[in-house]
């Protein structure tokens, strides 16, 4: 252990004194506050903070990833190329201890830098609203002023208070929080689809040239969408179980987006909603939990949220959401798959969520450090960096890659599914676990998800790389020069 520690501290010294880390540190220390000051987002305070957190974390993550790759590779390859390793390995240290020492050094440096930069981002995020006078204290001040003001002044103040309340509300409920999200389970349509397929086959209406698989996929998505569509005068009901708000005094949010078959003239849809435990209607028992109704008019193709008191949820965590396509409309209303409707509720604080999001970045860095160490056990510095960068960028867009390959034609996709796909699935999915994806919409990043990612990215993938590195390195002839 002592030798691992000695190597680790030496690695950190190297990173700091060779000024590799310094470049990145200075860049971030300058850029982050600058971003905090200059990014305005969509103009609202919430938008401003969302952009800042999103870009700030992404930039930090990107730069630290690059730094990790460079340091983890440089540390070992320079030892080999400049031959300090001759004096190190002839001391009583095992080769795996040397590698673990380097890894530990890189990770410790990452932890320190990540802590520093995320602290900067967090502080700026928390203090920006105060700087712009959007705070509870400011509201109280305005209210007392209102109470003491003359009637003429009160009118102006009223607007101001109203605006502030609105902004505070938006900030606290839609950004500085961590909301769990429930998506309605997808309807099972396999049987129906197969029935339709056979029907079409019998009547000979199958489109020529398309494979069975493709037709089934097409039919399935059409059928699923059908289940999410309501013609004029029809209604849709989604049922959720396991809704567990942090406390019943708070609000739930129904977040939704409409698609339509025919654009209404003013691009708005009228609707009527029913939210609560609808089972109470049927059984005819006494109503215990309230059922709320809303009549709304909303712009199509944008997200909206309906706030509902959390007491609408039944004791057992049941909640139903009903939508009625009122006859005022003249179109079928469709809720797009996956994103069409979800129930959001506050499940944790922003701080805890932020912390976990930062951990997500750390996991990335640990993976890259293992990758860099592996690459440097058998490659020279430039080649190892290139390889690691390739892996990094592939992992960053792995979701996009997988999706785009799914659209390939039949023969190509067979080729792909045996070659590239296994490689891509072996890589971690940085984009799927992007911290900004959770923080910007204030979505809960749960401990269990974090544990899952840790298990997958670190315990399996990264340790596999590390194991391979140890294996390669322990058999390598250190003093053999390969040109």
């Amino acid at each position, binding site marked *: 252990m002592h030798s691992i520690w000695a190597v680790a501290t030496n690695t950190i010294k190297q990173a700091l004194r060779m000024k590799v880390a310094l470049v990145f540190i200075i860049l971030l220390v300058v850029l982050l506050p600058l971003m905090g000051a200059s990014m305005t987002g969509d103009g609202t305070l919430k938008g401003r903070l969302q952009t800042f957190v999103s870009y700030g974390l992404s930039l930090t993550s990107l730069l630290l990833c690059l730094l990790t790759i460079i340091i983890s590779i440089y540390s070992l390859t320079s030892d080999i190329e400049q031959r300090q390793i*001759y004096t190190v390995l002839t001391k009583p240290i095992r080769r795996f201890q040397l590698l673990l020492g380097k890894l530990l050094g890189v990770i410790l440096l990452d932890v320190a830098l990540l802590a520093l930069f995320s602290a900067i981002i967090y502080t700026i995020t928390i203090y920006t609203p105060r700087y712009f006078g959007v705070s509870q204290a400011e509201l109280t001040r305005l209210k007392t002023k209102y109470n003491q003001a003359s009637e003429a002044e009160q009118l102006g103040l009223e607007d101001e208070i109203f605006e502030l309340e609105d902004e505070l509300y938006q900030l606290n409920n839609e950004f500085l929080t961590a909301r769990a999200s429930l998506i309605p389970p997808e309807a099972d349509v396999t049987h129906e689809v197969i029935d339709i397929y056979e029907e079409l086959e019998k009547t000979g209406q199958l489109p020529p040239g398309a494979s069975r698989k493709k037709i089934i996929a097409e039919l399935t998505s059409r059928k699923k969408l059908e289940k999410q569509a309501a013609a004029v005068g029809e209604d849709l009901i989604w049922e959720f179980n396991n809704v567990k708000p942090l406390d019943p005094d708070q609000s739930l949010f129904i977040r939704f987006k409409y698609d339509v078959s025919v654009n209404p003239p003013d691009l708005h849809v009228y609707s009527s909603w029913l939210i609560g435990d609808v089972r109470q209607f049927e059984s005819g028992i006494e109503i215990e939990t309230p059922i709320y109704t809303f009549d709304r008019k909303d712009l199509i193709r944008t997200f909206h949220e309906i706030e509902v008191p959390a007491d609408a949820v039944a004791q057992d965590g049941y909640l139903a959401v009903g939508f009625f396509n009122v006859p005022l409309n003249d179109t079928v209303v469709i809720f797009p798959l996956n994103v069409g409707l979800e129930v959001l509720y506050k499940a944790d604080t922003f701080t805890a969520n932020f912390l976990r999001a930062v951990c997500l970045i750390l996991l990335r860095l640990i993976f890259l450090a293992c990758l860099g160490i592996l690459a440097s056990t058998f490659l020279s510095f430039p080649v190892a960096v290139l390889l690691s960068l390739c892996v990094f960028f592939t992992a960053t867009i792995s979701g996009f890659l997988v999706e785009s390959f799914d659209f390939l034609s039949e023969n190509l996709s067979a080729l792909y599914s045996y070659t590239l796909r296994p490689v891509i699935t072996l890589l971690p999915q940085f984009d799927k676990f992007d911290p900004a994806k959770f923080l910007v919409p204030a979505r809960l990043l749960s401990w269990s998800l974090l544990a899952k990612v840790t298990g997958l990215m670190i315990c399996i993938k990264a340790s596999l790389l590390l194991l391979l590195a140890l294996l390669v390195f322990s058999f390598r002839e250190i003093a053999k020069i390969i040109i």
Partner: protein
Amino acid sequence: MEYAVETFSLTKIFSDWWGREIVRAVDDLNLRVRYNEVFGLLGPNGSGKTTTLKMLLGLLYPTKGKAIVLGGDGANPKISAKIGFLPEESYLYRYLNARETLDFYGRLFALPHKVRKMRIEALLDMVGLKAVANRPVGTFSKGMARRIGLAQALINDPDLLILDEPTTGLDPIGTRQIKDLILKLVERGKTILLCSHLLADVEDVCDRIAILYGGKIQAQGRVRDLLQQTDKKQITTGSISDTTVQRIKQLIQNEQADCVVTSPMDKLETFFIRTVAAAQQQAQPTSGAVSTTQIGAFLTPKTLTESILDKLVSARVSQEPRPEPPTEQVHPVETSQTKPDEQLLSKLTKPAEPAQPKPVVKNGKAKTKPVKTETPRPAEQTKKSILDQLTGRSTPQNEDEDSDSKVN
């Protein structure tokens, strides 16, 4: 375990990417280095000296044959803890300063903090770099880096010292010091295996040599046996009158032998050392290996240099009575019969043991505490004790071997 280093038809073939042989760097080498001797490996450039050493240390794997170092595999941590290695060039971390460099290597040996600190200071003193100890070693001159490399090889008080061209880049004083050091270390019972081209150096210190060419041993044996011209004799006298010379010549001619009479020349080395010592005494400025009076003290007066080295290496061997024996010098090992619990004690005093200072308490014989710098005492004595600390422990086993080899 008769030999400190033994190789059995050790062969190294470097092949290209396709597996075709390109260089046969070491060929069927059978090397035997006894305990407690200085063994010199000579040979022209590219004759396979460095390759051999690398194979001994596990940096290269032999194509054929094997090497046994101190009774085991040189790459095994248990064995390498007892080896000091100075590579061909001083490969150091440029961003660390001299002190940090030694500290790093000391930590790889798991030396406890106190021992590490003491040894580092003693070594810096010894190699004359104390004044520049806080400068990054990247800024050091070649010889200065070499000195740190040497200090690094000594930090674990090794039983076997492997030196690859130890004197390259060193000034004559440094060279002289290394040679002296080697001799003193051998007196202390260490084994030294070195490579060099500088025949004069090798001649001065080596007990036995092997000359390599093309990876094969061409000649091997005791230096004296190889070089002594038994049919010639040399007589050196103080200043004598011409008439005496004439009479001696006459005597020799009576025996039908040739005779040449000259005034002996100083060796250039001796002259150089004298000149630098003089400059040192005038305190002329330098930013090299010696720059303060303290370090000057180490290098300038030949006697002091000697005395430091003496103390460094002869701490255990010397029989001179010590006013206050430091705890590590628990003498039992030197008596021929080793009692079991004393053996345990000396194990405890081994440098790698973290519980190093404990023997004081357990021993019961040494009533004095270990010499610490805090206790006011003459500076000389403090230094002595530090140096004692540095080298004054080796395993009882080794001591036995020492005495063995002396009997032989």
